[in-house]
Protein backbone atom coordinates (compact mmCIF):
# COMPACT_ATOMS: atom_id res chain seq x y z
CA UNK A 1 0.00 0.00 0.00
CA UNK A 2 1.10 3.56 -0.69
CA UNK A 3 0.69 4.31 3.02
CA UNK A 4 3.18 1.61 4.07
CA UNK A 5 5.68 2.48 1.37
CA UNK A 6 5.56 6.10 2.48
CA UNK A 7 6.02 5.41 6.18
CA UNK A 8 9.28 3.58 5.52
CA UNK A 9 10.53 6.31 3.17
CA UNK A 10 9.64 9.05 5.60
CA UNK A 11 11.26 7.33 8.54
CA UNK A 12 14.56 8.06 6.88
CA UNK A 13 13.69 11.62 5.86
CA UNK A 14 12.36 12.74 9.22
CA UNK A 15 14.39 15.18 11.17
CA UNK A 16 15.67 16.88 8.04
CA UNK A 17 13.08 19.66 8.35
CA UNK A 18 12.50 20.92 4.85
CA UNK A 19 11.41 18.81 1.93
CA UNK A 20 13.82 18.92 -1.00
CA UNK A 21 13.54 17.41 -4.44
CA UNK A 22 16.04 14.67 -3.67
CA UNK A 23 14.60 13.39 -0.41
CA UNK A 24 11.15 13.42 -1.94
CA UNK A 25 12.07 11.63 -5.16
CA UNK A 26 11.68 8.13 -3.70
CA UNK A 27 8.26 8.99 -2.35
CA UNK A 28 7.29 10.54 -5.68
CA UNK A 29 8.45 7.50 -7.60
CA UNK A 30 6.12 5.45 -5.44
CA UNK A 31 3.26 7.87 -6.04
CA UNK A 32 3.88 7.73 -9.78
CA UNK A 33 3.90 3.92 -9.70
CA UNK A 34 0.70 3.86 -7.66
CA UNK A 35 -0.91 6.15 -10.23
CA UNK A 36 0.29 3.97 -13.11
CA UNK A 37 -1.04 0.85 -11.41
CA UNK A 38 -4.30 2.71 -11.04
CA UNK A 39 -4.33 3.34 -14.81
CA UNK A 40 -3.65 7.04 -14.72
CA UNK A 41 -2.06 7.91 -18.05
CA UNK A 42 1.71 8.07 -17.68
CA UNK A 43 1.94 11.67 -18.97
CA UNK A 44 -0.85 12.77 -16.64
CA UNK A 45 0.81 10.90 -13.75
CA UNK A 46 4.09 12.66 -14.39
CA UNK A 47 2.42 16.07 -14.56
CA UNK A 48 0.55 15.37 -11.33
CA UNK A 49 3.70 14.22 -9.55
CA UNK A 50 5.58 17.33 -10.76
CA UNK A 51 2.76 19.47 -9.43
CA UNK A 52 2.77 17.94 -5.95
CA UNK A 53 6.57 17.94 -5.85
CA UNK A 54 6.43 21.68 -6.37
CA UNK A 55 3.80 22.05 -3.67
CA UNK A 56 5.69 19.86 -1.22
CA UNK A 57 9.11 21.51 -1.69
CA UNK A 58 9.89 23.70 1.24
CA UNK A 59 6.80 22.56 3.09
CA UNK A 60 6.93 21.71 6.74
CA UNK A 61 4.94 18.51 6.45
CA UNK A 62 7.79 16.42 7.72
CA UNK A 63 7.63 17.91 11.20
CA UNK A 64 4.49 15.84 11.65
CA UNK A 65 4.66 12.75 13.85
CA UNK A 66 3.41 10.62 11.00
CA UNK A 67 4.88 12.30 7.93
CA UNK A 68 3.90 9.41 5.67
CA UNK A 69 0.25 9.84 6.52
CA UNK A 70 0.53 13.61 6.28
CA UNK A 71 2.02 13.30 2.87
CA UNK A 72 -0.74 11.02 1.69
CA UNK A 73 -3.27 13.57 2.91
CA UNK A 74 -1.60 16.25 0.80
CA UNK A 75 -1.64 14.04 -2.26
CA UNK A 76 -5.22 12.98 -1.69
CA UNK A 77 -6.32 16.56 -1.26
CA UNK A 78 -4.50 17.54 -4.44
CA UNK A 79 -6.03 14.64 -6.38
CA UNK A 80 -9.51 15.37 -5.02
CA UNK A 81 -9.30 19.01 -6.02
CA UNK A 82 -8.00 18.01 -9.39
CA UNK A 83 -10.84 15.55 -9.99
CA UNK A 84 -13.27 18.41 -9.62
CA UNK A 85 -14.19 20.07 -6.40
CA UNK A 86 -17.93 20.29 -6.54
CA UNK A 87 -20.21 17.49 -7.59
CA UNK A 88 -21.92 19.07 -10.57
CA UNK A 89 -25.14 17.50 -11.74
CA UNK A 90 -27.03 17.90 -15.00
CA UNK A 91 -27.23 21.51 -16.16
CA UNK A 92 -30.91 21.85 -17.08
CA UNK A 93 -32.02 24.13 -19.84
CA UNK A 94 -33.55 27.44 -18.87
CA UNK A 95 -36.15 26.81 -21.57
CA UNK A 96 -37.68 24.02 -19.52
CA UNK A 97 -36.80 21.37 -22.11
CA UNK A 98 -33.42 19.71 -21.55
CA UNK A 99 -31.67 17.53 -24.12
CA UNK A 100 -28.91 15.09 -23.21
CA UNK A 101 -26.84 13.04 -25.68
CA UNK A 102 -25.00 9.93 -24.46
CA UNK A 103 -21.79 9.08 -26.35
CA UNK A 104 -18.79 6.83 -26.03
CA UNK A 105 -16.87 3.75 -27.14
CA UNK A 106 -18.51 0.38 -27.69
CA UNK A 107 -19.69 -1.41 -24.58
CA UNK A 108 -18.89 1.41 -22.15
CA UNK A 109 -22.40 1.43 -20.66
CA UNK A 110 -24.27 4.14 -22.57
CA UNK A 111 -27.63 2.41 -23.02
CA UNK A 112 -27.73 1.29 -19.39
CA UNK A 113 -26.66 4.79 -18.28
CA UNK A 114 -29.43 6.43 -20.36
CA UNK A 115 -32.02 4.49 -18.40
CA UNK A 116 -30.30 4.97 -15.05
CA UNK A 117 -30.04 8.72 -15.61
CA UNK A 118 -33.68 8.95 -16.67
CA UNK A 119 -34.74 7.14 -13.50
CA UNK A 120 -32.44 9.32 -11.36
CA UNK A 121 -33.76 12.56 -12.81
CA UNK A 122 -37.35 11.39 -12.53
CA UNK A 123 -37.03 10.36 -8.87
CA UNK A 124 -34.51 12.84 -7.57
CA UNK A 125 -35.08 15.91 -9.72
CA UNK A 126 -38.79 15.53 -10.49
CA UNK A 127 -38.22 15.50 -14.22
CA UNK A 128 -40.48 13.95 -16.82
CA UNK A 129 -37.88 12.14 -18.96
CA UNK A 130 -38.19 10.60 -22.39
CA UNK A 131 -35.70 8.24 -24.05
CA UNK A 132 -34.75 8.16 -27.71
CA UNK A 133 -33.29 4.96 -29.16
CA UNK A 134 -30.91 6.28 -31.79
CA UNK A 135 -28.54 3.28 -31.92
CA UNK A 136 -29.63 1.60 -35.12
CA UNK A 137 -26.42 -0.30 -35.50
CA UNK A 138 -26.06 -2.80 -32.69
CA UNK A 139 -28.39 -5.81 -32.92
CA UNK A 140 -31.30 -5.36 -30.48
CA UNK A 141 -29.98 -2.05 -29.11
CA UNK A 142 -33.44 -0.53 -29.54
CA UNK A 143 -35.01 -3.54 -27.78
CA UNK A 144 -32.53 -3.13 -24.94
CA UNK A 145 -33.51 0.50 -24.32
CA UNK A 146 -37.21 -0.37 -24.63
CA UNK A 147 -36.90 -3.11 -22.01
CA UNK A 148 -35.08 -0.75 -19.66
CA UNK A 149 -37.61 2.02 -20.33
CA UNK A 150 -40.39 -0.34 -19.28
CA UNK A 151 -38.51 -1.26 -16.11
CA UNK A 152 -38.30 2.37 -15.04
CA UNK A 153 -41.62 3.46 -16.53
CA UNK A 154 -40.11 5.98 -18.94
CA UNK A 155 -41.29 6.18 -22.56
CA UNK A 156 -38.86 5.21 -25.32
CA UNK A 157 -39.11 6.47 -28.88
CA UNK A 158 -37.95 4.17 -31.65
CA UNK A 159 -38.60 3.94 -35.35
CA UNK A 160 -38.02 1.35 -38.03
CA UNK A 161 -35.48 3.21 -40.10
CA UNK A 162 -31.79 3.13 -40.95
CA UNK A 163 -31.37 6.84 -40.25
CA UNK A 164 -30.61 7.83 -36.66
CA UNK A 165 -31.26 11.50 -37.47
CA UNK A 166 -34.86 10.66 -38.35
CA UNK A 167 -35.26 8.92 -34.99
CA UNK A 168 -33.81 11.92 -33.17
CA UNK A 169 -35.96 14.44 -35.04
CA UNK A 170 -39.19 12.49 -34.65
CA UNK A 171 -38.31 11.50 -31.11
CA UNK A 172 -37.94 15.13 -30.09
CA UNK A 173 -41.38 16.00 -31.57
CA UNK A 174 -42.94 13.02 -29.84
CA UNK A 175 -41.33 13.96 -26.52
CA UNK A 176 -42.61 17.52 -26.74
CA UNK A 177 -46.09 16.36 -27.69
CA UNK A 178 -46.10 14.18 -24.57
CA UNK A 179 -45.04 17.07 -22.32
CA UNK A 180 -41.70 15.53 -21.48
CA UNK A 181 -39.27 18.10 -20.09
CA UNK A 182 -36.11 16.10 -20.62
CA UNK A 183 -34.86 13.82 -23.37
CA UNK A 184 -31.92 11.45 -23.30
CA UNK A 185 -30.61 10.25 -26.66
CA UNK A 186 -28.85 6.87 -26.72
CA UNK A 187 -26.31 6.57 -29.51
CA UNK A 188 -24.31 3.69 -30.97
CA UNK A 189 -20.92 2.89 -29.54
CA UNK A 190 -18.24 4.18 -31.88
CA UNK A 191 -14.47 4.46 -32.23
CA UNK A 192 -13.02 7.97 -32.05
CA UNK A 193 -11.00 7.01 -35.14
CA UNK A 194 -14.08 6.09 -37.15
CA UNK A 195 -14.57 9.25 -39.18
CA UNK A 196 -17.98 8.27 -40.55
CA UNK A 197 -19.42 7.53 -37.14
CA UNK A 198 -17.84 10.59 -35.53
CA UNK A 199 -19.51 12.65 -38.27
CA UNK A 200 -22.78 10.94 -37.50
CA UNK A 201 -22.37 11.96 -33.86
CA UNK A 202 -21.71 15.55 -34.95
CA UNK A 203 -24.92 15.45 -36.97
CA UNK A 204 -26.94 14.06 -34.09
CA UNK A 205 -25.58 16.87 -31.94
CA UNK A 206 -26.32 19.58 -34.52
CA UNK A 207 -29.83 18.32 -34.96
CA UNK A 208 -30.70 17.87 -31.28
CA UNK A 209 -28.82 20.90 -29.93
CA UNK A 210 -28.18 19.27 -26.55
CA UNK A 211 -27.61 20.99 -23.22
CA UNK A 212 -25.41 18.11 -22.11
CA UNK A 213 -23.23 15.70 -24.05
CA UNK A 214 -22.07 12.99 -21.68
CA UNK A 215 -19.02 10.92 -22.52
CA UNK A 216 -19.57 7.50 -20.99
CA UNK A 217 -16.29 5.81 -20.10
CA UNK A 218 -15.63 2.35 -18.73
CA UNK A 219 -14.06 2.64 -15.26
CA UNK A 220 -11.46 0.01 -16.14
CA UNK A 221 -10.07 1.86 -19.17
CA UNK A 222 -6.30 2.05 -19.25
CA UNK A 223 -3.82 4.39 -20.89
CA UNK A 224 -5.93 4.90 -23.99
CA UNK A 225 -8.51 6.91 -22.03
CA UNK A 226 -6.64 10.07 -22.99
CA UNK A 227 -6.97 9.34 -26.68
CA UNK A 228 -10.64 8.45 -26.87
CA UNK A 229 -11.87 11.12 -24.46
CA UNK A 230 -9.76 13.81 -26.11
CA UNK A 231 -11.03 12.89 -29.57
CA UNK A 232 -14.66 12.85 -28.47
CA UNK A 233 -14.39 16.18 -26.69
CA UNK A 234 -12.68 17.73 -29.70
CA UNK A 235 -15.31 16.44 -32.10
CA UNK A 236 -18.36 17.47 -30.09
CA UNK A 237 -18.76 19.73 -27.11
CA UNK A 238 -18.69 17.13 -24.34
CA UNK A 239 -20.04 18.71 -21.15
CA UNK A 240 -19.58 15.90 -18.69
CA UNK A 241 -18.24 12.42 -18.01
CA UNK A 242 -19.89 9.30 -16.63
CA UNK A 243 -17.62 6.55 -15.29
CA UNK A 244 -19.24 3.14 -15.38
CA UNK A 245 -18.66 -0.26 -13.77
CA UNK A 246 -17.10 1.29 -10.70
CA UNK A 247 -18.57 -1.54 -8.64
CA UNK A 248 -15.59 -3.55 -9.85
CA UNK A 249 -12.14 -3.29 -8.30
CA UNK A 250 -10.55 -1.26 -11.04
CA UNK A 251 -8.79 1.71 -9.41
CA UNK A 252 -10.37 4.13 -11.87
CA UNK A 253 -7.31 6.20 -12.75
CA UNK A 254 -8.77 6.74 -16.21
CA UNK A 255 -10.92 9.37 -14.51
CA UNK A 256 -7.84 11.47 -13.79
CA UNK A 257 -6.63 11.14 -17.37
CA UNK A 258 -10.02 11.99 -18.84
CA UNK A 259 -10.44 14.97 -16.53
CA UNK A 260 -6.96 16.21 -17.39
CA UNK A 261 -7.32 16.05 -21.16
CA UNK A 262 -10.94 17.18 -21.46
CA UNK A 263 -11.17 19.52 -18.50
CA UNK A 264 -14.78 18.38 -18.16
CA UNK A 265 -16.46 17.45 -14.87
CA UNK A 266 -17.11 13.85 -13.95
CA UNK A 267 -20.81 13.96 -13.15
CA UNK A 268 -21.92 10.44 -12.29
CA UNK A 269 -20.62 6.95 -11.69
CA UNK A 270 -22.23 3.63 -12.46
CA UNK A 271 -22.12 1.25 -9.50
CA UNK A 272 -24.04 -1.80 -10.69
CA UNK A 273 -25.92 -3.22 -13.65
CA UNK A 274 -29.21 -2.33 -12.01
CA UNK A 275 -31.13 0.85 -12.54
CA UNK A 276 -30.38 2.10 -9.04
CA UNK A 277 -26.63 1.57 -9.51
CA UNK A 278 -26.05 5.23 -10.28
CA UNK A 279 -24.75 8.07 -8.14
CA UNK A 280 -23.42 11.60 -8.37
CA UNK A 281 -19.65 11.66 -8.49
CA UNK A 282 -17.66 12.14 -5.27
CA UNK A 283 -14.08 13.22 -6.04
CA UNK A 284 -12.75 12.47 -2.55
CA UNK A 285 -13.92 8.85 -2.71
CA UNK A 286 -12.34 8.31 -6.10
CA UNK A 287 -9.04 9.89 -5.13
CA UNK A 288 -8.79 7.50 -2.15
CA UNK A 289 -9.53 4.59 -4.45
CA UNK A 290 -6.97 5.67 -7.04
CA UNK A 291 -4.18 6.02 -4.49
CA UNK A 292 -5.03 2.55 -3.23
Amino acid at each position, binding site marked *: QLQDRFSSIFKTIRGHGKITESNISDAMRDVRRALLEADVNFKVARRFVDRITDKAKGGEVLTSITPGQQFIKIIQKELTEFLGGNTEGIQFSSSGFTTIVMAGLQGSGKTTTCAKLARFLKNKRQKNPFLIAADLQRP*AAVDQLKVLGKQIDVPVYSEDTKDPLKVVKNGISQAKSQDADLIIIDTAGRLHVDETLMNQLKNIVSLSNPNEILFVADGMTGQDAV*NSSKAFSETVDVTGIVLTKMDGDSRGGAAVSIREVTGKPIKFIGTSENMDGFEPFHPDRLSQRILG
Partner: protein
Amino acid sequence: ISGKKHLSADDLEKLEEALLQADLGWEVVDNIVDSLSKSDDKNLAWEERFLNSMDLLLNGKIQTKPLRKTILLVGINGTGKTTSAAKLAGEFSKDGESVLLVAGDTYRAAAVEQIREWSKRLKVQLVANEGTSDPAAVAFDGVNSGLSKNVDRIIVDTAGRLHTSLNLMKELEKINRVVRKMTDEVDVLITIDANTGQNGIQQAREFNKYLPIDGVILTKMDGTARGGIAVPIMLELNLPVYYIGVGEQVDDLVPFDMDSYLKGLIG
Protein backbone atom coordinates in the same frame (compact mmCIF):
# COMPACT_ATOMS: atom_id res chain seq x y z
CA ILE B 1 14.46 5.88 -32.15
CA SER B 2 13.46 3.47 -34.85
CA GLY B 3 16.19 1.12 -36.02
CA LYS B 4 18.73 2.24 -33.41
CA LYS B 5 21.16 -0.38 -32.18
CA HIS B 6 22.23 1.37 -29.02
CA LEU B 7 19.67 3.25 -26.97
CA SER B 8 20.67 6.35 -25.06
CA ALA B 9 19.09 7.27 -21.73
CA ASP B 10 16.72 9.59 -23.60
CA ASP B 11 15.84 6.84 -26.06
CA LEU B 12 15.11 4.45 -23.21
CA GLU B 13 12.79 7.01 -21.68
CA LYS B 14 10.91 7.36 -24.99
CA LEU B 15 10.67 3.59 -25.22
CA GLU B 16 9.45 3.34 -21.63
CA GLU B 17 6.69 5.81 -22.42
CA ALA B 18 5.59 3.96 -25.53
CA LEU B 19 5.40 0.68 -23.64
CA LEU B 20 3.53 2.23 -20.70
CA GLN B 21 1.08 3.73 -23.16
CA ALA B 22 0.44 0.20 -24.44
CA ASP B 23 -0.85 -0.85 -20.98
CA LEU B 24 1.99 -3.27 -20.26
CA GLY B 25 2.19 -2.02 -16.68
CA TRP B 26 5.25 -0.47 -15.06
CA GLU B 27 6.76 -3.74 -13.81
CA VAL B 28 6.78 -5.44 -17.22
CA VAL B 29 8.01 -2.19 -18.78
CA ASP B 30 10.82 -1.84 -16.22
CA ASN B 31 11.98 -5.36 -17.05
CA ILE B 32 11.90 -4.76 -20.79
CA VAL B 33 13.69 -1.40 -20.60
CA ASP B 34 16.22 -2.89 -18.22
CA SER B 35 17.05 -5.78 -20.54
CA LEU B 36 17.21 -3.53 -23.61
CA SER B 37 19.52 -1.06 -21.90
CA LYS B 38 22.16 -3.72 -21.44
CA SER B 39 24.63 -3.65 -24.32
CA ASP B 40 23.98 -6.31 -26.88
CA ASP B 41 26.67 -8.06 -28.89
CA LYS B 42 24.35 -9.10 -31.69
CA ASN B 43 24.45 -5.61 -33.17
CA LEU B 44 20.71 -5.65 -33.81
CA ALA B 45 18.25 -2.79 -33.90
CA TRP B 46 16.45 -2.49 -30.57
CA GLU B 47 13.15 -3.53 -32.19
CA GLU B 48 14.68 -6.84 -33.20
CA ARG B 49 16.02 -7.41 -29.70
CA PHE B 50 12.63 -6.50 -28.23
CA LEU B 51 10.76 -8.89 -30.52
CA ASN B 52 13.25 -11.68 -29.93
CA SER B 53 13.19 -11.43 -26.16
CA MET B 54 9.38 -11.03 -25.97
CA ASP B 55 8.94 -13.93 -28.36
CA LEU B 56 11.14 -16.16 -26.25
CA LEU B 57 9.38 -15.05 -23.09
CA LEU B 58 5.86 -15.55 -24.41
CA ASN B 59 6.04 -18.30 -26.96
CA GLY B 60 8.01 -20.40 -24.55
CA LYS B 61 5.08 -20.32 -22.17
CA ILE B 62 2.05 -20.57 -24.39
CA GLN B 63 0.67 -23.74 -25.87
CA THR B 64 -2.04 -23.02 -28.38
CA LYS B 65 -3.92 -26.22 -28.99
CA PRO B 66 -6.86 -26.20 -31.42
CA LEU B 67 -10.15 -25.15 -29.85
CA ARG B 68 -12.37 -27.89 -28.47
CA LYS B 69 -15.90 -28.65 -29.58
CA THR B 70 -17.75 -26.69 -26.89
CA ILE B 71 -16.74 -23.10 -26.20
CA LEU B 72 -17.91 -21.11 -23.20
CA LEU B 73 -17.52 -17.34 -23.50
CA VAL B 74 -17.05 -15.44 -20.26
CA GLY B 75 -15.92 -11.99 -19.21
CA ILE B 76 -16.67 -8.56 -17.84
CA ASN B 77 -19.76 -6.65 -18.97
CA GLY B 78 -19.53 -5.13 -22.42
CA THR B 79 -16.20 -6.73 -23.39
CA GLY B 80 -17.61 -8.37 -26.52
CA LYS B 81 -18.73 -11.89 -25.56
CA THR B 82 -21.95 -11.96 -27.58
CA THR B 83 -20.36 -10.38 -30.64
CA SER B 84 -17.38 -12.73 -30.37
CA ALA B 85 -19.73 -15.71 -30.05
CA ALA B 86 -21.32 -14.63 -33.32
CA LYS B 87 -17.92 -14.10 -34.95
CA LEU B 88 -16.76 -17.57 -33.88
CA ALA B 89 -19.98 -19.07 -35.21
CA GLY B 90 -19.33 -17.32 -38.51
CA GLU B 91 -15.75 -18.52 -38.62
CA PHE B 92 -16.68 -22.16 -37.98
CA SER B 93 -19.56 -22.01 -40.46
CA LYS B 94 -17.21 -20.72 -43.13
CA ASP B 95 -15.04 -23.75 -42.50
CA GLY B 96 -18.05 -25.90 -43.28
CA GLU B 97 -18.80 -26.83 -39.68
CA SER B 98 -22.28 -27.03 -38.18
CA VAL B 99 -22.60 -24.64 -35.24
CA LEU B 100 -25.04 -24.25 -32.39
CA LEU B 101 -25.25 -20.99 -30.45
CA VAL B 102 -26.56 -21.06 -26.89
CA ALA B 103 -28.13 -17.93 -25.41
CA GLY B 104 -26.66 -18.30 -21.94
CA ASP B 105 -27.28 -14.68 -20.89
CA THR B 106 -30.66 -14.93 -19.19
CA TYR B 107 -30.26 -11.68 -17.33
CA ARG B 108 -29.48 -8.57 -19.33
CA ALA B 109 -32.14 -6.57 -21.19
CA ALA B 110 -32.53 -7.87 -24.76
CA ALA B 111 -29.53 -10.21 -24.46
CA VAL B 112 -31.45 -13.06 -26.08
CA GLU B 113 -32.75 -10.78 -28.85
CA GLN B 114 -29.20 -9.70 -29.58
CA ILE B 115 -27.83 -13.21 -30.05
CA ARG B 116 -31.01 -14.26 -31.84
CA GLU B 117 -30.43 -11.50 -34.39
CA TRP B 118 -26.92 -12.80 -34.92
CA SER B 119 -28.06 -16.41 -35.29
CA LYS B 120 -30.57 -15.28 -37.94
CA ARG B 121 -27.92 -13.32 -39.86
CA LEU B 122 -25.54 -16.27 -39.74
CA LYS B 123 -28.24 -18.87 -40.39
CA VAL B 124 -27.02 -20.77 -37.36
CA GLN B 125 -29.20 -22.67 -34.87
CA LEU B 126 -29.84 -21.08 -31.52
CA VAL B 127 -30.93 -22.61 -28.22
CA ALA B 128 -32.59 -20.06 -25.96
CA ASN B 129 -35.16 -20.12 -23.20
CA GLU B 130 -36.69 -16.77 -22.39
CA GLY B 131 -38.85 -18.38 -19.74
CA THR B 132 -36.00 -19.03 -17.35
CA SER B 133 -33.59 -16.90 -15.41
CA ASP B 134 -31.32 -19.88 -14.79
CA PRO B 135 -28.37 -19.74 -17.16
CA ALA B 136 -27.15 -23.19 -16.11
CA ALA B 137 -30.46 -24.65 -17.30
CA VAL B 138 -30.10 -23.02 -20.72
CA ALA B 139 -26.45 -24.09 -20.94
CA PHE B 140 -27.54 -27.62 -20.13
CA ASP B 141 -30.29 -27.63 -22.75
CA GLY B 142 -28.01 -26.10 -25.32
CA VAL B 143 -25.05 -28.41 -24.88
CA ASN B 144 -27.32 -31.42 -24.54
CA SER B 145 -29.08 -30.55 -27.78
CA GLY B 146 -25.80 -29.87 -29.56
CA LEU B 147 -24.26 -33.16 -28.45
CA SER B 148 -27.29 -35.25 -29.34
CA LYS B 149 -27.56 -33.57 -32.76
CA ASN B 150 -23.86 -34.09 -33.28
CA VAL B 151 -23.10 -30.52 -34.26
CA ASP B 152 -19.45 -29.75 -34.84
CA ARG B 153 -19.32 -26.70 -32.53
CA ILE B 154 -21.34 -25.49 -29.57
CA ILE B 155 -20.82 -21.89 -28.49
CA VAL B 156 -22.28 -20.86 -25.15
CA ASP B 157 -22.64 -17.13 -24.47
CA THR B 158 -22.89 -15.98 -20.85
CA ALA B 159 -23.94 -12.78 -19.13
CA GLY B 160 -21.33 -10.14 -18.43
CA ARG B 161 -20.23 -10.08 -14.83
CA LEU B 162 -17.67 -8.52 -12.53
CA HIS B 163 -15.20 -10.84 -10.84
CA THR B 164 -15.96 -8.90 -7.67
CA SER B 165 -19.49 -10.27 -7.54
CA LEU B 166 -19.34 -13.52 -5.58
CA ASN B 167 -22.85 -14.60 -6.58
CA LEU B 168 -22.22 -14.13 -10.27
CA MET B 169 -18.90 -15.93 -10.10
CA LYS B 170 -20.58 -18.84 -8.30
CA GLU B 171 -23.21 -18.82 -11.02
CA LEU B 172 -20.51 -19.09 -13.66
CA GLU B 173 -18.83 -21.88 -11.72
CA LYS B 174 -22.15 -23.74 -11.83
CA ILE B 175 -22.62 -23.19 -15.58
CA ASN B 176 -19.15 -24.61 -16.14
CA ARG B 177 -19.86 -27.61 -13.88
CA VAL B 178 -23.16 -28.36 -15.61
CA VAL B 179 -21.54 -28.23 -19.04
CA ARG B 180 -18.62 -30.39 -17.99
CA LYS B 181 -20.95 -33.07 -16.65
CA MET B 182 -22.01 -33.61 -20.23
CA THR B 183 -18.71 -33.28 -22.04
CA ASP B 184 -15.09 -32.69 -21.20
CA GLU B 185 -14.36 -31.22 -24.61
CA VAL B 186 -14.81 -27.68 -23.37
CA ASP B 187 -12.71 -24.56 -23.77
CA VAL B 188 -13.48 -21.48 -21.69
CA LEU B 189 -12.47 -18.24 -23.39
CA ILE B 190 -12.43 -14.92 -21.58
CA THR B 191 -13.00 -11.74 -23.56
CA ILE B 192 -10.64 -8.95 -22.60
CA ASP B 193 -11.31 -5.47 -23.96
CA ALA B 194 -8.09 -4.08 -25.47
CA ASN B 195 -8.88 -0.74 -23.79
CA THR B 196 -8.62 -2.35 -20.36
CA GLY B 197 -5.93 -1.17 -17.99
CA GLN B 198 -4.22 -3.08 -15.20
CA ASN B 199 -7.55 -4.41 -13.93
CA GLY B 200 -7.43 -6.83 -16.86
CA ILE B 201 -4.95 -9.05 -15.06
CA GLN B 202 -7.18 -9.09 -12.00
CA GLN B 203 -10.13 -10.06 -14.19
CA ALA B 204 -8.37 -13.00 -15.77
CA ARG B 205 -6.87 -14.06 -12.45
CA GLU B 206 -10.15 -14.00 -10.59
CA PHE B 207 -12.22 -15.67 -13.30
CA ASN B 208 -9.56 -18.35 -13.44
CA LYS B 209 -10.12 -19.08 -9.74
CA TYR B 210 -13.73 -20.07 -10.36
CA LEU B 211 -13.39 -22.02 -13.58
CA PRO B 212 -10.34 -22.96 -15.60
CA ILE B 213 -9.81 -20.34 -18.29
CA ASP B 214 -8.31 -21.83 -21.42
CA GLY B 215 -7.69 -18.75 -23.50
CA VAL B 216 -8.33 -15.12 -24.31
CA ILE B 217 -10.11 -13.24 -27.04
CA LEU B 218 -8.66 -9.74 -27.10
CA THR B 219 -11.45 -7.51 -28.41
CA LYS B 220 -11.69 -3.97 -29.81
CA MET B 221 -8.14 -3.95 -31.16
CA ASP B 222 -9.41 -1.79 -34.04
CA GLY B 223 -9.34 1.22 -31.73
CA THR B 224 -6.17 3.03 -30.66
CA ALA B 225 -5.55 0.89 -27.57
CA ARG B 226 -2.70 -1.56 -28.09
CA GLY B 227 -3.96 -4.32 -25.81
CA GLY B 228 -0.70 -4.60 -23.89
CA ILE B 229 -2.65 -5.95 -20.93
CA ALA B 230 -2.62 -9.32 -22.70
CA VAL B 231 1.12 -9.62 -22.01
CA PRO B 232 0.95 -9.84 -18.22
CA ILE B 233 -2.12 -12.08 -18.62
CA MET B 234 -0.22 -14.42 -20.93
CA LEU B 235 2.81 -14.38 -18.64
CA GLU B 236 1.14 -14.81 -15.29
CA LEU B 237 -1.59 -17.25 -16.24
CA ASN B 238 0.02 -19.05 -19.19
CA LEU B 239 -3.03 -18.22 -21.26
CA PRO B 240 -2.91 -18.15 -25.05
CA VAL B 241 -4.71 -15.42 -26.95
CA TYR B 242 -6.72 -17.27 -29.57
CA TYR B 243 -8.27 -14.40 -31.45
CA ILE B 244 -8.27 -10.65 -31.80
CA GLY B 245 -11.47 -8.70 -32.36
CA VAL B 246 -11.02 -5.95 -34.92
CA GLY B 247 -14.50 -4.62 -35.44
CA GLU B 248 -18.22 -5.09 -34.98
CA GLN B 249 -18.95 -7.26 -38.01
CA VAL B 250 -18.95 -11.02 -38.10
CA ASP B 251 -15.73 -11.19 -40.15
CA ASP B 252 -13.85 -8.97 -37.71
CA LEU B 253 -12.12 -11.81 -35.91
CA VAL B 254 -8.48 -12.56 -36.64
CA PRO B 255 -6.43 -15.48 -35.34
CA PHE B 256 -3.86 -14.14 -32.90
CA ASP B 257 -0.44 -13.60 -34.41
CA MET B 258 2.28 -13.01 -31.80
CA ASP B 259 4.60 -11.18 -34.15
CA SER B 260 2.12 -8.62 -35.42
CA TYR B 261 0.75 -8.18 -31.90
CA LEU B 262 4.22 -7.44 -30.51
CA LYS B 263 4.98 -5.08 -33.38
CA GLY B 264 1.71 -3.32 -32.58
CA LEU B 265 2.83 -2.77 -28.98
CA ILE B 266 5.76 -0.67 -30.06
CA GLY B 267 3.59 1.06 -32.65
